[in-house]
């Protein structure tokens, strides 16, 4: 499991670990039943305190992303996590906010933006078919 912590903003490290594990699950890089590194192992890998990792794992467990089995370790939950839709939406929301901000600054109204998006999507699909 590769996690990249950023010092460029003040998001607490436990939160960064939580977000990135969720992202890895949503994007399929972590699969159901896969074992996560131990608390101590990840702490040493990332040079953060074990308390931070433990807090991230507790949070992920409370949200149903991982299950911890006593003595065995921490594993990704079974099946498609109910969270993964919510998580996908969170990731998309961030992108959409950026898009909306930009289009407003450029003076493009919502109607036009939706039209452009639809056009783009069609172009994108046909382009992919060509590639196949």
């Amino acid at each position, binding site marked *: 499991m590769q996690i990249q912590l950023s*010092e460029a903003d003040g998001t607490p*490290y436990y939160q960064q670990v939580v977000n990135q594990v969720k992202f890895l699950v949503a994007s399929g890089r972590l699969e159901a039943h896969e074992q996560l590194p131990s608390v101590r192992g990840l*702490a040493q890998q990332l040079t953060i305190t074990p308390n931070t990792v433990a807090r991230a794992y507790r949070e992920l467990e409370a949200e149903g992303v991982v299950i911890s089995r006593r003595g065995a370790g921490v594993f990704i939950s079974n099946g498609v996590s109910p969270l993964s839709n919510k998580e996908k939406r969170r990731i998309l929301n961030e992108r959409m906010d950026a898009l909306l901000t930009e289009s407003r600054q450029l003076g493009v109204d919502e109607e036009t933006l939706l039209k452009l998006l639809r056009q783009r999507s069609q172009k994108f699909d046909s382009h992919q078919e060509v590639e196949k």
Partner: protein
Amino acid sequence: MSEHVIEISNLSRRFGKKQALSDVSLSVPEGCVFGLVGENGAGKTTLLKHVLGFLKPQQGSVRVFGLDPVADPPGVLGRIGHLSENRDLPAWMTVRELIEFTRAFYPKWDPVYAEELRMMFELSLNQKVPTLSRGQLARAGLLVALAHRPPLLVLDEPSSGLDPVVRKDILDAIIRTVVEEGRTVLFSSHLLDEVQRVSDRIAILDQGKLLLTSPLDEVLVSHYQLTIRFLEPQPFFPQLTGALMWSGSGREWKIVCNGQKQELESELELMEAEILDQTAPTLEEIFVARMKSAQRASAQE
């Protein structure tokens, strides 16, 4: 994390006319990495010297493992691994002699661990201490601080003036220390990205006074940075609730704020100012903002 390894209450210290510490109270729980930050001369080293029992409190009290470090040096110092700011290692010794010499003081010295650290740090036994580079000196100091597996590690500016490779060794040693059950680290630093990375709790000292002591996560989430845009250009930044520091000119300003978000938002609304962006400031940005705000407050006194 139930017990407090270090308990400092109302500690004050004066050197001649200079008030080095005034009424400082803080506690360090077991198993935590505690980062002490502040500008040069803020009192960090003085505080650490009280923990080590090198200075006797003029007012207030210091307890380490529940003991008075001045009255019971073996009970306290024997359980602390310590790296001082100027790495005062005996200059006439070789690395081998340094290891043997230090070993004699600690019944719990672990020779296997010492050797492992020596190999990891690439220190050769026959090298003389004065010929060591800054980085090697820090590694040698760290070796003798760690090899008796102390329950408490006290590091004064461990990475100042060192290159990134040695700094990484030091951070790894801090993490390795707490990863081993129940150990505690207290360190001072002005490299705030490092403090943000490894600390569970932090304290900010400013001119001998404790500005803040809190879990790091709480410090990070209670501060926020806004980019705001006023209707009209502002010659000076207006008075706003919770704003610690501001920069900018004309209509757009960037501010670092602490708490009181609702009050601030309604004030901005009254001024018809728009929030363009909100971000989470780094510990360094928070520290600078706190310092500026404290300086302003003391200038007004």
